[in-house]
């Protein structure tokens, strides 16, 4: 395996980590309106991800920066090409981060309600748009001979990509509901399990169509394996949730995300951004990558840093392992 192939895998790992982790905290954001019956329950949900959402988001920054370093052409084409959707995602992430931190910093109800609306929308919109973006990457977009995106904003909203967006939105919300069942206490925990069933079934239908469509268009043997794993894991996650095995349900909904992202990257390889205009104009792991020297240095950094990051982030989840119920929230907000 050459270094640029390894880096293709590492970029896939970073995106997978991002969708696994921020996936459930986007889901929690969406559930503040779908699941919570009152404002205290909203707070319960928000506090399940309180200590961790910021660390989860860094997986995105790492994916972005590593793409810049390992595949500069990919970084340049992707972010200049998907300009407006990316701008919208950035705006959401800006407002969302501030919303979590500032919501409880004033007691006025209106202030808190405004930030709660913000948390819902800024979780929902990126959860949808990331699916649209990845749908477009796998499907291929109009890229010219100079690696420049020449399509329009509306080209990005094709049926396949929009379906991809609905899949990430429902899958993340399902993942979030399973997480909520794992991390909360009392009435909301029961309702999270019930809602997870509905969300799981909707996700299963949408994901199956999307993944089969992907397989039919660009699939290969390996991607078929990933597809099967994703679908089986999703069904098993729904089953574990019904059986009240919350830890298993969460691990399996996570595995669904891992397998689905793996499948997209497997259909992509050795391209990183295929051109729909001409196969020769596609960005590939060879023509978009950095020099061997840069990749070597980056490999050292990633191979050492990533496991360490996983260790201390994992430790954080262990520190905050207790379930949260309404009784754990102090009356007066800080």
């Amino acid at each position, binding site marked *: 395996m050459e270094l640029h192939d390894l880096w293709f895998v590492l970029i896939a790992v970073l995106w997978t980590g991002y969708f696994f982790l921020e996936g459930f905290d986007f889901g929690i954001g969406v559930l503040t309106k779908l699941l919570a019956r009152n404002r205290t329950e909203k707070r319960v949900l928000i506090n399940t991800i309180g200590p*961790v959402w910021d660390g989860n988001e860094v997986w995105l920054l790492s994916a972005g920066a*590593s793409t810049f*370093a390992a595949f*500069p*052409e990919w970084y340049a084409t992707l972010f200049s090409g998907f300009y407006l959707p*990316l701008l919208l995602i950035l705006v959401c992430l800006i407002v969302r981060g501030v919303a979590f931190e500032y919501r409880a910093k004033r007691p006025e109800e209106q202030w808190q309600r405004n930030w709660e609306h913000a948390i819902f929308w800024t979780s929902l919109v990126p959860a949808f748009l990331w699916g649209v973006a990845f749908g477009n990457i796998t499907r291929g977009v109009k890229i010219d001979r100079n690696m420049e995106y020449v399509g329009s904003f509306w080209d990005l909203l094709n049926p396949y990509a929009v379906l991809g967006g609905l899949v990430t939105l429902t899958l993340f919300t399902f993942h979030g509901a399973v997480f909520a069942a794992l991390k909360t206490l009392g009435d909301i925990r029961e309702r999270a399990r019930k809602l997870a069933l509905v969300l799981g079934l909707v996700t299963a239908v949408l994901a199956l169509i999307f993944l089969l469509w992907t397989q039919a268009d660009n699939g290969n043997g390996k991607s078929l394996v990933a597809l099967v794993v994703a679908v089986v894991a999703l069904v098993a996650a729904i089953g574990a949730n019904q059986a009240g095995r919350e830890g298993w349900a969460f691990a399996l909904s996570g595995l669904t995300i891992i397998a689905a992202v793996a499948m997209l990257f497997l259909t992509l390889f050795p391209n990183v951004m295929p051109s729909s205009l001409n196969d020769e104009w596609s960005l590939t792991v060879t023509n978009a990558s950095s020099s061997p020297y840069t990749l070597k240095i980056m490999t050292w950094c990633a191979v050492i840093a990533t496991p360490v990051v996983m260790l201390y982030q994992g430790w*954080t989840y262990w520190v905050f392992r207790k379930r949260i119920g309404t009784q754990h*929230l102090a009356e007066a907000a800080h």
Partner: protein
Amino acid sequence: MELALAPETVARWQFGITTVYHFLFVPLTISLAALTAGLQTAWVRTEKEKYLRATKFWGKLFLINIAMGVVTGIVQEFQFGMNWSDYSRFVGDVFGAPLAFESLIAFFFESTFIGLWIFGWDKLPKKIHLACIWMVSIGTLLSAYFILAANSWMQHPVGYRINEEKGRAELTDFWRVLTQNTALNQVFHSFSAAFLTGGAFMVGIAAFHLMRKKHIPVMRTSLRLGLVTMAVGGILTAISGDTLGKVMYEQQPMKMAAAEALWDGEKPAPFSVFAYGDVDKGHNTVALEIPGLLSFLAHSDFDSYVPGINDTNKAEQEKYGPGDYKPIVPVAYWGFRWMIGFGMASFSLGLLGLWLTRKRFLLPAAQRTGEDEVPHLVLLKKPLGSRLTRLYWLLAVWTMAFPLIANSWGWIFTEMGRQPWVVYGVMQTRDAVSPSVSQGEMITSLVVLTTIYAILAVVEVKLLAKYIKAGPPELTEADLNPPTKIGGDLRDADKPMAFSY
């Protein structure tokens, strides 16, 4: 009109606005993380309650501030690809690496441990909780280091070669990129300025409360800590500014000539106190100068030759081909002056404060004050009158803004002074912009980001003001009895969380 809205211009405005805005929060984050960590260390070691109250108070302000720093940093990670795709393609092999190191090493550190610190008061034993804020502090420093190394490469590219076939710059020596003198000097200068900024922030807020005789024990300690930080940060900023300046005279003579509005080379060269000139004709009409000082600043020698804007422009034309290699001279000239002026004004106020509030040194015994008294401001032997005392406290409050202004102008000076280059001597800014992004898209992005940033600025400042006025919180039973086990003690499973959103 058309020229004013060229994509390059729009992209530059966006980069300037978002970056200067981001950098309002960065120095405060760097210094407040370390200062809060220091205060918490004092609490853990001495168990004096004033230190814990101070930790909670400054920690809260630090968190309000870092939230903005983090979210505005996200834009920075992606706008190179969005607006500067040709830049990204050309330099990604070199420039991307420090950014990736930053996110993999520093960002994860910072963001994970900040979560542990915020929510960990009743989940972590005292010393582990303390270690978390130090981890955050290390994360902020590392993060700034990698970014400054990346920026230094734009100021003075080293450790790379041009690959003609691929049409890009390629990294050949990463260690040199991280340790070249431009990077080390910029890091030194930015870190010390960050502490000057945080010190001034602390002093201003402490002065606000002491003037009203409120929260005296906590604010007395904070005032002292802030003043010492300002004095040390200020002197180091001056020293590192001088060495960085000398490095720049070697590496970017144009920037430094523009900083002085020195149109034609002189031997010895004077330092300009005030100048008003004709940029098109290339000379000053009014100039007030100190002879020989510029030679000294550039080369530590009152008699040496310093090249001027016109000479350097000619030299660069010979080297790089026809064109105008001048930055906007008035921006560089005044940016340089605002940076030094505001920075040193704040340093002087810090030094003055340190003297006025001295504890024992050359202070008559009668003027010494206790832990719960507002310190007297003693110039020689007697305290200042009530009017002068009030004036000093007011000035101290105003000083909070000075380093922020200085930092902003410092960056505007160093970035605009490098123009027309985006990577000095290698790539011009006009060649760096994204060819596939339309003017409409860029304007949309500029307007949207600027609007959101403006709204958030109002929200943030109001929130800071609220928590500043509220003063340090009273300590609760839980604060004074931290858990002994990781994950929290199991005594009472239904106890409310010490901190919740």
